[in-house]
């Protein structure tokens, strides 16, 4: 694949209650964002174990984004805070695997923030395009 046509593969874990609805809103409002995003719906951002993130990144994805409710809005009260507690550990593990820390991101997107979701995905795609393919990339 020539360098300029690199289309990153970005796996996005969206929580069912806020971020997935936010992504839905982006879609129904016809806001454009890159097709490099693959959304996986999970019940809560707090249920995405670091193992899943690391496996995703070492088995072909160029980046991973976890989207959850804003702190205080979690459907399960503090699931998103659990995700936040794991963030640092995941970033350290990326170092251990020789990956850039920018390849992982944890963001809060509420159900009404379709615009923010689209902007976030565009920004992340641009950033990963600049970083280039992951050394573990399979495509």
């Amino acid at each position: 694949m020539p360098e300029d046509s690199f289309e990153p593969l970005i796996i996005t874990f969206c929580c069912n209650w806020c971020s997935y609805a936010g992504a839905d809103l982006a879609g129904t409002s016809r806001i454009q964002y890159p097709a490099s995003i693959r959304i996986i719906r999970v019940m809560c951002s707090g249920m995405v174990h670091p193992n899943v993130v690391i496996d995703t990144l070492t088995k072909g994805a160029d980046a991973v984004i976890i989207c959850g409710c804003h702190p205080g809005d979690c459907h399960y009260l503090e699931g998103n805070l659990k995700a936040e507690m794991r963030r640092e550990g995941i970033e350290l593990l990326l170092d251990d695997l020789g990956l850039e820390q920018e390849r992982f991101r944890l963001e809060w997107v509420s159900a009404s923030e379709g615009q923010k979701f689209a902007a976030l995905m565009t920004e992340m795609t641009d950033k990963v395009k600049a970083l280039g393919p992951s050394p573990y990339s399979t495509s």
Partner: protein
Amino acid sequence: MAVRVAEEWLNICGGCEVSILDIGDQLLDILPALEFVHMPVLMDSKYYGQLGERDHMEIPEADVGIISGGIRNDEEKKIAEEMRKKCKTLITLGSCACFGGIPAMANMWSVDELTDKVYRHCSTTESAATPTENIPGLLDRVYAVDEVVDVDVTIPGCPPSPDMIVEALTCLLEGKPFILPEKSVCDECPAKREKKAAGGDIKRPLQPLDIKVGEPWENTRCFMEQGVLCIGPVTRAGCSGTTVEEGEEKVPRCIKGYMPCRGCFGPIRKGANPLVDMVSSISSIGLDVKQVVDRRALLNRYIGGQNRLKPLPVRN
């Protein structure tokens, strides 16, 4: 009829063999049922015949084969393959054979980087070319035995506990399966846990611990909560032994010696990733993972084979 046993040591220090001897009195009970047909550490049996007359490597046929040590070079790979061919049941003994062991920490660098460091950039030796004549060539990395040949039984540990060797051999003699427990060292550890670190920084291994030797275990705080890195949460249980004398408590081996677990029994189940699990486990009780020195090697100390440790990808 006695069970024919072949034993082979590969990339190893020899501690596993000492562990076989360490079985003690019980060894005398099972010895009559065993006949050792090949064991380089104890007896002289040559791969190419006593006078070197054969043109191919040969190990005598055996019912049970025991391999200790990982696979680092061509010779060891051939021996492992020959052992698999000649032995009906193949046992890997010790962490090196099961997961790569201590030597597999070298998997963090390529062979070229390693030989370059050892032969040319070592301050205590003279520089020389990498030797190539009359020695087996190195493989690209250290392999666990099960990456090269099929293995029937694994006995982990560095060194493996004599109890467990007896248990595995007895199971084999009686035709029963030998299954390792799928639980962690913490599940068998009697130290008192409060699920929260006592506070402070992560201690280095030789910093003093708050322990009183001989105190009942329920008065001793979990080592990890005292800030000492203990790899128990992500390590398979079993080192505390299968039999406990009356009135004695079941205590994991290193904990019994008032040292934290080093992780020699390997991951709790196949396919687990102790590095990731351990990072979550350290932060979940409120310690700072960033303070763990040489995190990657330390948390993969005995399990660098099976692709767990590799050279880091080159960043552009």
